[in-house]
């Protein structure tokens, strides 16, 4: 099964120091060869290297371009609006029930920060909200800062582990990140949320369905130019977690939150969405959140 993303394999950071580690091209090629993934091998083979170490500058430039293309799909699928629609009732619940201000929204693995920049530009979330994006990758964070500055947006980006920020987030958010945590890494990811200051989280990721790999292939083939983006887009859809898996892992890792899947189907139609989201709240916010959701509460799955 082809379940490795090229972008995961061509980058390596020390999780403690966040120092960038050299990546051997031959080692990456070997991993894809073990999966008989010729497409990925051909993409990696064409990447620049110096004495078998992948050229970090070339990798950075490539990934910035890939993120720019990914943003196009996010825009087409109205992802900014979708996040804002879910965030507003959560923020209303936090405000009405009590929360330390400013409410710090942290985007985990923000990349070039599309979601936060969109929220800063158009989200209308209120002046008591602080937007912070965190990612291990300095080049992506540099690009996020450049873009935010160019449009004079009130948002901060840090090269950091999102869960080690000081002060920590009141709310953690991510898009297309959760499926990168495999095996025990998934409950460990949720365990990082379970700290007193954190009041809620919402993680958006691909919704697996029989149509998802084809749909993802079609959209990436039509909309993306970079072969790496096309490859990883399809693999992401293949290895995305089901709602049950996410709710279970969140329960194991962060039992202090009530959890539910949001927006898995398109109303009463049997059409699955491209993305679903896992919502977690401290139990005291649940009723206020449901009230604030209004008619959209029907989109919420069962709480656990």
């Amino acid at each position, binding site marked *: 099964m082809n379940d490795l993303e090229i972008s995961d394999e061509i980058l390596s950071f020390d999780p403690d120091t966040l120092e960038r580690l050299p990546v051997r091209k031959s080692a990456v090629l070997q991993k894809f060869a073990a999966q008989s993934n010729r497409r990925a091998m051909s993409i990696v083979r064409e990447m620049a290297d110096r004495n078998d170490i992948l050229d970090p500058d070339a990798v950075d430039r490539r990934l910035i371009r890939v993120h*720019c293309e990914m943003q196009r799909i996010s825009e087409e699928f109205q992802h900014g609006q979708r996040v804002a629609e879910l965030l507003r009732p959560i923020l209303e619940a936090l405000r009405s029930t009590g929360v330390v201000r400013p409410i710090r929204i942290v985007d985990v693995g923000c990349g070039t920060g599309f979601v936060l920049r969109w929220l800063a530009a158009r989200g209308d979330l209120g002046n008591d909200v602080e937007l912070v994006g965190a990612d291990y990758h300095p080049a992506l964070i540099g690009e996020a800062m450049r873009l935010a500055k160019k449009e004079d947006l009130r948002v901060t980006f840090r090269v950091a582990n999102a869960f080690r920020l000081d002060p920590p987030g009141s709310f953690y958010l991510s898009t297309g990140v959760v499926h990168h945590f495999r095996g025990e890494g998934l409950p460990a990811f949720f365990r990082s949320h379970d700290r007193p200051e954190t009041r809620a989280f919402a993680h958006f990721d691909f919704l697996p369905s029989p149509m998802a790999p084809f749909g993802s292939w079609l*959209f990436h083939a039509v909309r993306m130019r970079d072969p790496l983006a096309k490859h990883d887009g399809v693999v992401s859809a293949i290895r995305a977690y089901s709602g049950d898996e996410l709710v279970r892992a969140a329960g194991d890792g962060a039992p202090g939150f009530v959890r539910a899947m949001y927006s898995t189907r398109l109303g009463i139609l049997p059409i699955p969405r491209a993305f679903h989201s896992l919502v977690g709240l401290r139990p005291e916010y649940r009723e206020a959140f449901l009230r604030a959701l209004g008619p959209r509460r029907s989109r919420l799955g069962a709480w656990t």
Partner: protein
Amino acid sequence: MTLLIVTLYLLAVVDATASGYSAAAGRSALIHKGPHYRKSMVRGFVLGQIAAAISLSLVLWAVKTAAHPDAFCSDLARVWTRMLQVYLPFSLIILTAFAFRLAPSVDVRCLTSTLVFGPLAGIRPLVAIAGLLWGLWAAPRPEIIAGGAGILLLWLSLERVLGIPYRPKESV
């Protein structure tokens, strides 16, 4: 005949302008991209005029050099009518989807992408070829086949040409 030419011209210009949008998509990571897209769509429109002028010149030259201009024009009209039988419904579906794009619901707007814009963008070159073949079936003259193929190639290459200015940049 004039109505056929004008209809094909309008469709072609809309397609060229949309190609300008498409060439610019995914090239800027800014949030406010109005000027970015406008610039590229104007480029598409202008390039569309040039391609239309080349196409029309080719047709006029073919008519002028034809042994029997009246019969040639009659064949051309049959080919164009059949081409429009394919291109007009395709355009109508896309224009209808644009109307749904104005809906206030995020879900409805997304559906236009999932069900219409994405898949139809994928099959657009095939529809263009199918339309030409369906047209040529009515009058398969060698000069019309060669001219039609050349003009189609010209139009299908517009997006690639419009993408050239963006290539050296990583992000705008």
